[in-house]
């Protein structure tokens, strides 16, 4: 039987104390948007927030780096604390088809792959340098078990995802090019400002040329 040297315990204690202030600073910023968003729907106590943090994986992603690639299983539901992500698929002609953008405070994942464990058909990459919080299925289950009121948040999240999907589909089939662009501009001006035009065009189901023409038309006096 061996004894651990005392210096190691002492060293650990001092190190932890020294780093506590730094960690508190980082921690408060790292989860700021995340808990703000959740607390808009359900109120989490400090203890509940601490439980939640145990299951979150903080991750920095550089611009153009991938967090999910086609063929891989989507293991995480991704929350954007800072930055901008894009989810897209590549069609048979090799063109990108943008499915979703995710700004600060938004969640993004391939839900089908995340829930079923099947390989994803989508890619998710960073359009800007990002700070993300990732949670896997087991983590979510554990959070729901330990914080039952989080179920309410999950339900609302799913509901909103369904509404957004339904609305996007209906806009694609019922609205004109100009109307679709105007809706996006009204609702998400940040996306229009921060995302390159060819990606906006892809998101709206247009070619960049068509979007450019539509924008020109909109600036002409009626």
């Amino acid at each position: 039987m061996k004894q651990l040297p005392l210096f190691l315990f002492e060293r650990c204690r001092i190190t932890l104390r020294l780093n506590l202030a730094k960690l508190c600073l980082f921690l408060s910023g790292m989860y700021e948007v995340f808990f703000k968003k959740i607390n808009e729907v359900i109120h989490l106590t400090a203890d509940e927030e601490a439980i939640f943090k145990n299951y979150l994986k903080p991750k920095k992603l550089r611009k153009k780096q991938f967090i999910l690639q086609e063929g891989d299983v989507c293991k995480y539901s991704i929350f954007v604390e800072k930055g901008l992500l894009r989810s897209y698929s590549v069609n048979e002609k090799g063109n990108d088809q943008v499915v979703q953008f995710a700004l600060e405070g938004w969640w993004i994942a391939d839900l089908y792959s995340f829930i079923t464990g099947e390989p994803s058909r989508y890619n998710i990459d960073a359009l800007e340098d990002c700070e993300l919080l990732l949670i896997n299925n087991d983590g979510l289950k554990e959070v729901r078990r330990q914080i039952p009121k989080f179920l309410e948040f999950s339900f609302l999240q799913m509901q909103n995802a369904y509404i957004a999907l339904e609305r996007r589909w209906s806009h694609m089939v019922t609205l004109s090019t100009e109307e679709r662009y105007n809706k996006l501009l009204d609702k998400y001006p940040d996306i229009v400002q921060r995302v390159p035009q060819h990606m906006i065009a892809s998101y709206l189901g247009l070619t960049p040329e068509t979007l450019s023409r539509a924008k020109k038309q909109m600036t002409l006096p009626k």
Partner: protein
Amino acid sequence: MHIKETIALIGTGKNGRLAAVSLLACRYQLLLCDKNIIQARELAQELNNTACDCVAEAMECSFNCAWEADIIILTPDLEEQLEVAGYIKAVANQKLLISVYDDGNSNSGDKGISSTQQIDLIRDILPNTKIALIKFATARCDKGLKTNAIENIEIYSREQNTLDTVAGIFKNSGVENVKKELLSLTPNMLQPGSSDPKC
């Protein structure tokens, strides 16, 4: 198509170099961090000049390095590993951490610390991190950047998944002899300073 994972390699001394060498054939983004940034930059350059699949980059801050990484490898002596573990705690959550176990390193006082004790010491600081220990059982770093410098790696962990993942990383990188050992999880062993069946 598989995603290119990011590995934070903290410490670019003897063990850091061995760890870097053992990952040469893998398609990783390697972030090298050391108090001696010049040494880290030199190793990064050396790795990038080698015909390997990984892309290396030197970084000064271990916190940022670990924040960006999917996998963290701690290679300095145990005393420094514990210090770094405390520093990166907030960003190591739910990540895979590989600690290099060096029983021959007497400078830092590691002598006498068993693999289980080392895992438990790190786990006390990082309770939500998946921890594995590796030992370069037969390795020579005087061969330069050649994978065959690593002949044998021993891996220890308390979790089967972690053990398999880490073994996969090194096997994929061309290390032929990867020995893995699952360390038992008994309440007695979870107490710091408790008896260690490996001793």
